[in-house]
């Protein structure tokens, strides 16, 4: 069916509404990559099997990411008349029991995490049936979140255009094409205060303005989905969970600047995201929401997916464009900016996945609404993947301006196993480590930059007292060093040399002069590199030097690793009083350095031991001790 008029869209929306609230149980499983990795596939199969066996009529949906990745596999159950309940850490066996309960008309207690209040309704019956169950927004993880970009994530079937429409999808496009001029759209985006969510934070409206005014007739839209930070998966999740939101945003952008072709540049390592965005493009085209004469107007816009071949630097916009043109993915100097001269030398509007996903929401609810979220100069929400040594991990969307404290202690629930959180790395390998005593800082572009880090595209890696900051700096630098394209001297030669110094430090072979040299080179790489990758690569080193100088000094002057991580600087011993002689370490030691009779305390031969810490990690009695 081609959507040509508002009433056609209304029909699509009604269909979607029936799919979202059917007169039978609707069971949806969080099946973004995060869920699948936790075993959601097997749970989904078990649910289907059980339902078939019992001949239970239900709607089984493979949804996107529900957010709380920690508790995956997550299953969202909607029973007509009862409301919705979220089940956590589901197993295939649990899934079988869940279906049995549903078949007998009951909601089970087992694995229930929270109930989900439906919009505009009172406490659902599920809350009464399952006494003690809290609403989802009472969980610390969800309490302070505000979902704009992830508004549909985990709620709808990412393959279903009907369900997207039922959640208000394509209303914005309708509004944009039928009631707003391109200029008015750009004005709304400008007034909303939206800034580039890829990390740069450039005012989005201004970028659109510049691009729409650039000379020439042909223009292009690009969605940058080349997300490559270790420990970050925001863009992947948006594409996997709500691809239509990205498409709608890009289409509105195309109308606003006068482009008829858009590209989604997505890394090839995201197969599910690629499948889902391709499917969504196909469906949108079938429905006349992409292609020629969209919504009965004379506006034409199509989108093509281009897969990146796995270079981190291609997330840099000029390198991305070079790669899209079929050339070597390496950055070129700016100006000219892509908004003036981008793909094939034509004005090109390139924004991150999350920026595109925000557009439709802004057009529908108005720029004032969006500007009211967050703080002045930092309007709206941003998505972070909260990972590392923190109790609650997952995908978090917060209004900007929330403090790091609220993020890590509140949403994240503090350190893992009661350990003290030492620092947080924001912005991925290009970001810096912010120490715990600065956690009062708000999460916004200026504060993070001032603290020596960056907002980045949203990675947030939490570190506790067992993390060695020198080791962390070296880990991230290794990543950027290996991902450097090698075009400019500072990034290519400087990063390599910095890595060599850091290696000497963790091996206890560095001198105090090395630290001076490290800082000198780091500053040079930051100031003299050609593109954002090189300019930010030293951030992990500079920020740890700034806040954790004592750890560097301990490594260099005392040849000691305070966190007990650096292999060359620690020794392992077995506490004879605690050791029960179970022999586990003896069997697991990869170099055979542990000796001892059964049920008698074991000892580690220091000459053979490689300090790999296998014994330390596996000892059930915690008898292995690290001498720092």
């Amino acid at each position, binding site marked *: 069916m081609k959507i040509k008029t508002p009433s056609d869209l209304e029909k699509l929306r009604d269909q979607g509404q029936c799919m979202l609230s059917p007169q039978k149980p609707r069971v949806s499983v969080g099946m973004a990559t995060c869920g699948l990795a936790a075993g959601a596939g097997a749970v989904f199969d078990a649910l289907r099997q059980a339902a078939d066996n019992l001949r239970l009529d239900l709607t089984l949906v493979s949804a996107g990411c529900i957010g709380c990745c920690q508790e995956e596999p997550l299953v969202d159950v909607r029973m007509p008349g009862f409301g919705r309940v979220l089940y956590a850490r589901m197993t295939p066996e649990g899934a079988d029991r869940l279906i049995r309960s549903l078949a007998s008309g009951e909601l089970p207690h087992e694995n229930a995490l929270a109930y989900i209040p439906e919009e505009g309704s009172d406490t659902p019956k599920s809350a009464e049936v399952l006494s003690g169950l809290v609403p989802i927004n009472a969980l610390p993880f969800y309490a302070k979140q505000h979902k704009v970009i992830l508004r549909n994530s985990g709620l709808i079937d990412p393959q279903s255009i009907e369900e997207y429409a039922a959640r208000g999808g394509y209303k914005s496009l309708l509004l944009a094409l039928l009631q707003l001029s391109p200029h008015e759209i750009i004005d709304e985006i400008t007034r909303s205060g939206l800034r580039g969510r890829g990390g740069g934070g450039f005012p989005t409206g201004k970028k659109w303005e510049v691009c729409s005014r650039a000379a020439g007739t042909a223009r292009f839209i690009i969605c940058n989905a080349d997300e490559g930070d270790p420990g970050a998966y925001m863009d992947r999740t948006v594409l996997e969970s709500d691809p239509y939101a990205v498409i709608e945003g890009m289409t509105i952008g195309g109308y606003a600047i006068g482009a008829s072709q858009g590209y989604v540049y997505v890394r090839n390592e995201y197969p599910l995201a690629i499948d889902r965005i391709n499917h969504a493009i196909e469906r949108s085209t079938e429905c006349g929401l992409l292609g020629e004469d969209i919504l009965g107007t004379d506006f034409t816009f199509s989108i093509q997916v281009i897969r990146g071949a796995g*270079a981190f630097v291609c997330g840099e916009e000029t390198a991305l464009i070079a790669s899209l043109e079929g050339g*070597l993915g*390496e950055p*070129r*100097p700016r*100006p000219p900016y892509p908004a003036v001269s981008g793909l094939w030398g034509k004005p090109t509007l390139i924004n991150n996945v999350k920026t595109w996903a925000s557009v439709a929401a802004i057009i529908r609810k108005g720029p004032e609404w969006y500007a009211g979220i967050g703080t002045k100069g930092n309007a709206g929400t941003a998505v972070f993947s909260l990972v590392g040594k923190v109790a609650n991990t997952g995908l978090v969307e917060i209004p900007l301006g929330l403090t790091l404290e609220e993020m890590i202690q509140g949403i994240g629930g503090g350190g893992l196993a009661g350990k003290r959180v030492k620092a947080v790395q924001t912005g991925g390998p290009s970001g810096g480590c912010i120490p715990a005593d600065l956690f009062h800082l708000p999460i916004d572009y200026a504060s993070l930059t001032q603290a020596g880090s960056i907002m980045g595209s949203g990675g947030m890696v939490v570190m506790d007292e067992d993390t060695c900051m020198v080791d962390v700096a070296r880990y991230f630098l290794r990543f950027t*060093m*290996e*991902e*450097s*394209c*090698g*075009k*400019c*001297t*500072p990034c*290519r*030669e*400087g*990063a*390599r*040399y910095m890595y060599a110094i850091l290696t000497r430090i963790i091996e206890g072979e560095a001198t105090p002069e090395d630290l001076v*040299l490290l800082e*000198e*080179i780091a500053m*040079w790489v930051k*100031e*003299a*590199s*050609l593109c954002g990758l090189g300019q930010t690569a030293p951030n992990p080193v500079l920020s740890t030097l700034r806040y954790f100088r004592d750890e560097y000094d301990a490594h260099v002057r005392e040849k000691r690793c305070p966190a007990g991580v650096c292999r060359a600087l620690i020794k392992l011993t077995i506490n004879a009083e605690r050791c029960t002689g179970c022999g586990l370490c003896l069997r697991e030691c990869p170099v055979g350095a542990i000796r001892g009779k059964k049920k008698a305390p074991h000892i580690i031969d220091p000459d053979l031991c490689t300090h790999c810490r296998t014994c330390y990690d596996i000892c059930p009695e915690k008898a292995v001790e690290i001498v720092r």
Partner: protein
Amino acid sequence: MITLTINRRPVSVPQGTLLLKAVEEAGITLPSLCHHDALAPYGACRLCMVMITAPYRALVASCTYPVEEGLVVETDAPEAVQARRLALEFLMSRCPRSDVIRKMAEKEGVTASRFGMPSTEQTDELCVLCGLCVRVCRELIGAAAIGFTGRGSERRVGAPFDFQSDACIGCGACAEVCPTGAIQMEDRGNQRILRAWNTRITLSACPECGRFFTPEPTRFLKKMLPEIETYWEVCPDCRRQKTSRQWLNAQ
């Protein structure tokens, strides 16, 4: 014309001039390896860094920065000098045998590198990855026979898979443009050998004078002089003679 300030003195240059050229206009020589007037700005070697203090304060590579009215530049700011020296030190350490780099470094006051020598198998390295050869081959000659391979510190220049290139026309522009002499070209009989690209090109003998020359005319020449198309089968010298004769006859 655009007026900017370079080291506290006003300088006027046409709009669109690159800062590196404006600095030269002011009588100051900056070290530079990757810039060529005939090629698009590239900004890879980062040797020509200067400090700008207006409209904002930043270190910039002068070879990629277009001049603008009111720009204030300090080539002698300590940060800029330091940035140039570090780049030179690293290039010295990469190519210890390069006289070009050593001399360039001496001019900037660098006599030794603190960053040690490359591993033994690479002490002959002369390539600084300035990309001039790759760009001249692509942008001017139109052959695009060579390109970069590898990433980061493994970046190199070469023909695809280091095989004999079937795109190379043997024009020798890469060897000509190389600032450090890393690309050597040898003519042996009718063979032109480009060792750096593992490539041998069979040259044509000129039917007029018998000298060997590159068979494929460059796209650049074809585009510039389409009217002498009939002369491509003879060597460049005979082409010149023929066209001059034609011109004289016409007179």
